[in-house]
């Protein structure tokens, strides 16, 4: 790879994330040494100690490329998203959480109060007789202490600030990360707002399994499909696989190991709502001409919302479970 005239300034930040995205950057193996020769790291809380005040002291647009992973779940993440937008030339939503909400956005099936009740009162390992819950402000011995505000709804990065590029995946596959880095270093980039590193087709397109036009009799739950046929399409074997509704670029790594696609690369090109497309795909693959049979097969699908929106709740038309309804239920 050609050496740029000046070393790039690279940042990696995590908001509501598990840390897997930070680790996935190392999945590129020895190529990380190439990255090191091309770029200086100016912010990466996962691997070294950086203070927010240091970042605030950087001039605007100081950071060349900022990889932002994690969803926006509280006011701290929101504040840092605005800060990093101001300090970065190119801001990238890296990984499913910052691109489309990811696993943290499954919390959108609950209200903030339900989450607090579970975490601080109901869970079996919790003893909290005083019913203490996190408050945004607390005074102790004359000192004022602050905590970020926990939001009702998990949002994706592009809901908060303008994002230049998106890199999908939970975490992004090695090939995706590397081709994105190559594009960034070479400057050979698509228009802003594009997905980089991943493909433009569906996972089915790069899946090695074969369709044999078998009629689906019923859908199996995960504990029921020990050792599926290694060559046949998983969907045809009655295993719900999100391949048809998911963007390519991962080289079907899960399906290759006998696990169905869970949809971490998000919707395909020009699609906004991945779950809706998967519901549509299930309707098409059933190929039953018996109304009762259709109803029976569909009834066996457990937790369709959680299954089809596992990674994309913040990137869906409906965004969350209805809040008004939740409030009424609680009364």
């Amino acid at each position, binding site marked *: 790879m050609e050496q740029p005239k000046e070393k790039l300034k690279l940042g990696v930040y995590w908001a509501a994330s598990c840390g897997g995205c930070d680790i996935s950057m190392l999945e590129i193996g020895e190529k990380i040494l190439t990255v090191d020769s091309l770029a200086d790291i100016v912010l990466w809380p996962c691997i070294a100690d950086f203070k927010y005040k240091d970042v605030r002291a950087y001039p605007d647009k100081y950071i060349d490329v900022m990889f932002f992973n994690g969803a926006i779940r509280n006011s701290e993440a929101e504040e840092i998203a605005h800060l990093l937008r101001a300090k970065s030339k190119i801001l990238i939503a890296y990984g499913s959480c910052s691109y489309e909400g990811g696993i943290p956005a499954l919390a959108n099936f609950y209200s903030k109060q339900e989450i607090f009740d579970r975490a601080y009162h109901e869970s079996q390992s919790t003893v909290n007789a005083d019913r203490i819950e996190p408050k945004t402000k607390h005074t102790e011995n004359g000192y004022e202490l602050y905590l970020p505000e926990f939001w009702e*709804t998990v949002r994706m990065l592009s809901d908060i600030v303008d994002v230049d590029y998106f890199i999908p995946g939970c975490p992004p596959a090695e090939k995706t990360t590397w081709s994105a880095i190559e594009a960034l270093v070479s400057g050979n980039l698509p228009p802003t707002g594009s997905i980089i590193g991943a493909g433009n087709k569906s996972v089915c397109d790069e899946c090695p399994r074969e369709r044999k036009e078998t009629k689906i009799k019923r859908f199996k739950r995960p504990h029921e499909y020990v050792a599926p046929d290694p060559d046949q399409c998983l969907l045809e074997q009655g295993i719900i696989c999100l391949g048809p509704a998911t963007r390519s670029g991962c080289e079907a790594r899960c399906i290759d190991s006998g696990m169905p696609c869970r949809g971490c690369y998000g919707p395909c090109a020009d699609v906004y709502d991945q779950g809706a497309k998967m*519901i*549509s795909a299930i309707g098409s693959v059933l190929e039953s001409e018996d109304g009762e049979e259709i109803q029976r097969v569909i009834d066996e699908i457990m937790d369709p919302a959680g299954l089809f929106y596992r990674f994309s709740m913040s990137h869906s038309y409906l965004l969350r479970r209805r809040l008004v309804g939740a409030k009424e239920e609680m009364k």
Partner: protein
Amino acid sequence: MADTTTTEKSAEHTAEKVVPFEPKIIGFLCWWCTYAASDMAGTSRLKYPPNVSIIRVMCSSRVDPSFIMRAFAEGADGVLIGGCHLGECHYVSGNYKTAARIALLKKTFSQLGVEDDRLRLEWISAGEIRKFAEVITDMTEKVRKLGPLNWRENFEPK
């Protein structure tokens, strides 16, 4: 004094303007059956509530679940899908696909807090004009009882 009078008048005016809730329902109707029924119900001067905004599609299976979700997200209180009876689809098997999609969508909606009556799938042939009027009347009343969906409220709080 004149100012006060105007303010009072406008206050009265606003109070009077509280109109009862009228459900907004989007109807995706298949061109070969339910849309034809709606057409004939019109020419036959059948009476039914004006709450359904009809969008004609070539087949009920043309209705992607994302159309329905987007309708709810952007302010619809109910969505009606009308197609040919099972076995009578102009495209042979389109409505079986619709049946599966709507069944799965209803399950998904129950998890998201959208009441079951807000999404309705009906098979209405071109001749069943009375059924068409009854379905529209019944659905409008059911959605009226449920009240406004107002999904946009869910986007507001952080």
